[in-house]
């Protein structure tokens, strides 16, 4: 059994230069520890390997039930020179939401 990040959290992507930052915000604070354990920077780097070279850093924001993932070399060289259609990488939050994690209920 697995769940998607989408089932437990919402997300938004932002851009600065060639770096994308993607928030992952739990709907329910009780899932924060599970996300912390399973949604590691390595797991995220693997999910993004086709669109970003990385590295990936993760910052906890416990007060906000959230994490901030900072993904470098993710925007085709940066907004100003990128050949992509989505130069800001606004759609990249959906790569995050599609990541599958083991079911938290099954692990209790």
């Amino acid at each position, binding site marked *: 059994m697995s769940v998607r990040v*989408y089932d437990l959290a*919402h*997300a*938004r992507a*932002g*851009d*600065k*230069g*060639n*770096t994308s*930052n993607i*928030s992952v*915000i739990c709907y329910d604070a009780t899932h924060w520890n599970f996300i912390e354990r399973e949604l590691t920077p390595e797991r995220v780097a693997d999910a993004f390997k*086709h*669109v970003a070279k990385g590295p990936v850093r993760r*910052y*906890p*924001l*416990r*007060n*906000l*039930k*959230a994490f*901030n993932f*900072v993904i470098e070399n993710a925007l*085709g*060289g*940066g*907004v*100003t*020179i990128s*050949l*992509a*259609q*989505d130069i800001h990488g*606004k*759609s*990249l939050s*959906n*790569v995050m939401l599609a990541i599958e994690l083991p079911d938290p209920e099954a692990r209790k």
Partner: protein
Amino acid sequence: MKSRETVRVGAGAGTSDDRIVPALELAERGDIDYLVFECLAERTVSRENLSRSKDPNLGYSPSLHARLRMVLPACMRNGIRIVSNMGAANPLGGARAARKEAADLGLGDVPVAVVLGDDVSSIVKHRPELKLIENGEPLESILPKMISANAYLGADVVCEALNTGAPIVLSGRVADPSLFLAPMLHEFDWSYDDLPKIAQGTAAGHLLECTASVTGGCFGWPGKKEVPDLARNGYPFADVKADGSIVIGKTPDTGGRLDVMTCTEQLIYEIHDPTAYITPDCVLDITGIALSEESADRVRVEGARARPRTETYKVNVGYADGYIGEGEVSYGGIDAVARAKWAAEIVKERLRLQGFVYDDFRVDLIGMSSLHDQVDIRPEPYEVRLRLAGRTRERKAAHAIGFEVRAMHMHGPGGAGGACEPRVRDVLAVKSVLLPRNLVNSQVIVEGTL
């Protein structure tokens, strides 16, 4: 209703292309004291520098005309002061244009306070040794192609402009949250040493700087994150008190949604290390922030912290970096994807045969892989739009991409349709350096009679 000791700062734009009607609603029905228009993306100033080099009267945000024409009567009637970076590469030119709009609207002689000094191109020219933040190389490497260099100024100089009493303040490059912090400094005389207040004001500015992003824009998801009446979503404001307390609200009787979820998404937006969001006014730490819903469409912001501002300004250096060319054509029905892939190979081969070279090149199958790549694992759609794009030093090579893609109508696989005209655009790249504060001479001048 807001209390008498509260100052209400409204967000009227979060980018030069932002919608304008919600700003008018805020001016008419939002009971605001200030209306802030943030209209400069990273490369906008470079682009406007090019406009100014063609016509010395231009170089301010072209959206200034439409925005002021729409909101100025309501702002003047309701005593709302306007703060904006729509001055872009020519704040003085912007001020003259704004004054002319006011006069044409029958509002008389409206003085405009102008913030100058963000243009540091003549200063960095003599400092080729400054290191580019992005790659560590010296500024010298891009100096010959430099179009613009603008420091992100802070709230202090914008506050100085507000102190003149002019109803409109126009600047060039100012950090986004600083535009919102400035009215708070002006109203409450906060000192930069009073870090909890500077932190709260900066956090509020960050929440407001993308307008509808806290009121349900860029948020909704059918069946999952519903946003009521999104077509009529309103713009937000901050209710600020002298003690630094902040509540975010939105124009009454508008659509959209403002709650802890929308505010959390915007709070983390474009932040890297959440303990060190560097603005010209402070180094903000958002990790201690608590958001709570005070009532419908009102979110309280508490617990922002900050360390003192740094000794440097971040400077964006814009430079010309060749051209991007692109073309698109569509395939539908049986073997649509196979035909599109074949067409891509033919175009690439024809470009190669003509000797064109590209620093970067990209093939997208729109409908499969243009956003998240991995074409090999995506299901095939009924129809697909092929897009080819390349970056190059030569305009001719850039144009050839769209030219050859369009030629797929007659010289490619069967059944190609709907090719676009060849597209070419100048690349305005941006890199950044840090410049010691004492080298930047920001100042305020007033156009018109106070």
